């Protein structure tokens, strides 16, 4: 029988995203099973549930560790910035490490697990705990022989937790053909969360799924989650916050001609701009110009480079008259260079979030996102990028993402998927003719503003970027042939030469 209370009473976990996915948190006064394979983040999730409970909701918590010692636990979460010792000293957190050493235990005759109940009760009463984590209670099965007794006692334990109104998490190791190795799901009927740690093409992605949540609406998808320096954060695709304020302020791209194409004032602050083009069309140059313009306005700018080293970028930009050194010296221009293959996508995005929080820039460039996309499957990328774009918008950071497109490949469709979360899309197209190569720029879309439909000649000069005339100008017909484009291009080069 379900009561109304089942539908309403929830205990927020305080874990970023998880409360959205569960529509408010875990069932209050009930036990939730969190299962997953080794290293999937069960322990961290449990600890975070307690730490957030203490710090944000004033609910003390008990952590019963069957596997790790107090010291190990403290060290493991210290990297997330949690000081368990302090919480213990303040009497808000209790950690009980239970050791079951099968080799030193002999069993003879009847027994029960009242000792465990007493210890748990003692810890709960001592600090007035509202939350309990048992990690992982399955150790009982490997530590003791009499399975019948354990099963009966587990049933009693879950009833005991419920009678006391404790919101609990029990963790369980993933088993073959069932959620947990010893079938814990049999005892926990209210909420089951599955954590998964997959490695595809040598790169890891963590996912979370609510397998079951009795009497509650919940997201049924698999959600990617991050385990970054701030702990766990779940990335619900649905939670894309479209509540951010839209700025009316316009900022220059650093290329006067390009600003001219979008109403003479540049793009909106806080918008996301996608720059896509084939190799060597000047995407990095354009994005660097954009960053330099921000620095000239006295704004902090951050450049994520997945392809080139900092020195290489500085050298290359010098060749088109962009001197970046002064801005780096002034502390306005920040670089973050890393190989995309060095980390999984989730780790990249987590670290990007953190760097953005630390640097607190007004303008960010990710050059290129292609490498991130290629590093994992498509759906994951989109949700992660959505999350990143969302985060940037929330902070009113204007972002430019470059994207390497290669005609006729799967990336093209990817580009379209990505473009839907972008506010503006600039295309750089490579044109070849008679041994000559040139580049054209056009603005494919730019939300909320009138923009030129022209295709302009994109030229890298010693003094930065210039846009030439309309590509079609001075041509005799509207034939959409490369030859025709090149003809126009030649015409404009001649014009430039004069």
């Amino acid at each position: 029988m379900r009561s109304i209370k089942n539908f309403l009473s929830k205990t927020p976990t305080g874990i970023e995203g998880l409360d959205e996915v569960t529509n408010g948190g875990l069932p209050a006064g009930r036990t939730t099973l969190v299962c997953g394979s080794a290293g999937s983040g069960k322990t961290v999730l449990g600890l975070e549930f307690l730490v957030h409970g203490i710090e944000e909701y004033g609910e003390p918590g008990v952590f019963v560790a069957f596997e790790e010692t107090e010291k190990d636990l403290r060290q493991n979460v210290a990297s997330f910035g949690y000081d368990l010792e302090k919480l213990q000293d303040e009497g808000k957190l209790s950690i009980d490490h239970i050791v079951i050493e099968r080799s030193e235990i002999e069993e003879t005759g009847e027994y029960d697990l009242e000792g465990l109940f007493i210890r748990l009760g003692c810890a709960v009463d001592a600090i007035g705990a509202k939350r309990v984590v048992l990690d992982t209670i399955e150790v009982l099965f490997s530590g003791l022989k009499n399975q019948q007794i354990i099963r009966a006692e587990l049933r009693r334990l879950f009833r005991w937790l419920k009678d006391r109104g404790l919101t609990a998490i029990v963790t369980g190791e993933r088993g073959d053909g069932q959620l947990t190795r010893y079938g814990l799901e049999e005892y926990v009927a209210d909420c089951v969360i599955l954590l998964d740690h997959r490695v595809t093409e040598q790169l890891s992605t963590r996912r979370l799924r609510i397998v079951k949540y009795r009497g509650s609406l919940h997201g049924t998808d698999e959600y990617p989650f991050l385990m970054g320096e701030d702990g766990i954060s779940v990335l619900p695709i649905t939670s894309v916050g479209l509540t951010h304020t839209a700025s009316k302020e316009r900022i220059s791209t650093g290329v006067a001609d390009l600003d001219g194409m979008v109403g003479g004032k540049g793009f909106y602050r806080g918008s996301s701009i996608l720059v896509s083009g084939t190799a060597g069309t000047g995407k990095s140059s354009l994005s660097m110009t954009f960053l330099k313009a921000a620095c000239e306005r006295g704004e902090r700018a951050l450049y994520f480079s997945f392809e080139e080293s900092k020195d290489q970028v500085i050298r290359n930009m010098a060749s088109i008259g962009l001197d970046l050194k002064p801005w780096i010296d002034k502390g306005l221009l920040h670089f973050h260079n890393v190989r995309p293959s060095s980390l999984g996508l989730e780790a990249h995005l987590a670290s990007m979030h953190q760097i953005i929080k630390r640097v607190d820039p007004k303008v960010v460039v990710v050059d290129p996102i292609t490498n991130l996309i290629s590093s994992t499957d498509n759906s994951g990328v989109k949700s992660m990028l959505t999350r990143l774009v969302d985060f940037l918008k929330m902070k009113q950071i204007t972002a430019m993402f470059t994207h390497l497109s290669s005609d006729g490949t799967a990336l093209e469709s990817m580009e379209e998927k990505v473009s839907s979360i972008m506010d503006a899309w600039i295309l750089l197209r490579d044109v070849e003719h008679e041994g000559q190569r040139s580049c054209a720029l056009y603005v494919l879309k730019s939300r909320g503003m009138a923009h030129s439909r022209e295709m302009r000649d994109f030229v890298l000069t010693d003094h930065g970027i210039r846009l030439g005339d309309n590509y079609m100008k001075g041509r005799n017909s509207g034939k959409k042939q490369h030859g025709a484009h090149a003809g126009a291009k030649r015409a404009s080069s001649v014009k430039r030469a004069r």
Partner: protein
Amino acid sequence: MAGHAEKRQLEGQAKPERWMLRLYVAGQTPKSVAAFTNLKRICEKHLAGQYQIEVVDLLVNPKLAKGDQIIAVPTLVRQLPVPIKKIIGDLADEERVLVGIDVRPAAHTGV
């Protein structure tokens, strides 16, 4: 059966002076009463004059459960001689208890 004290001396091992045994229970349940009765009987039979039993009721002293890592009751802990040994259950099986606390029943039954 011959006297156990003599037998143990025949083994030629350094025999421990004292057996410090601690029995953890949770209240006066049938299981805890049985465990105590069984333990007393086994000790009188095999360790007469050499043992000391301390009964800890976790309902009275719940905090003591942590120290000896008690989760099941009844649990018998052999404090001395070291190393620590644990037997859980009502101690109904004498042989197992003797093996569990290292009183080597094999020496008694051997030819």
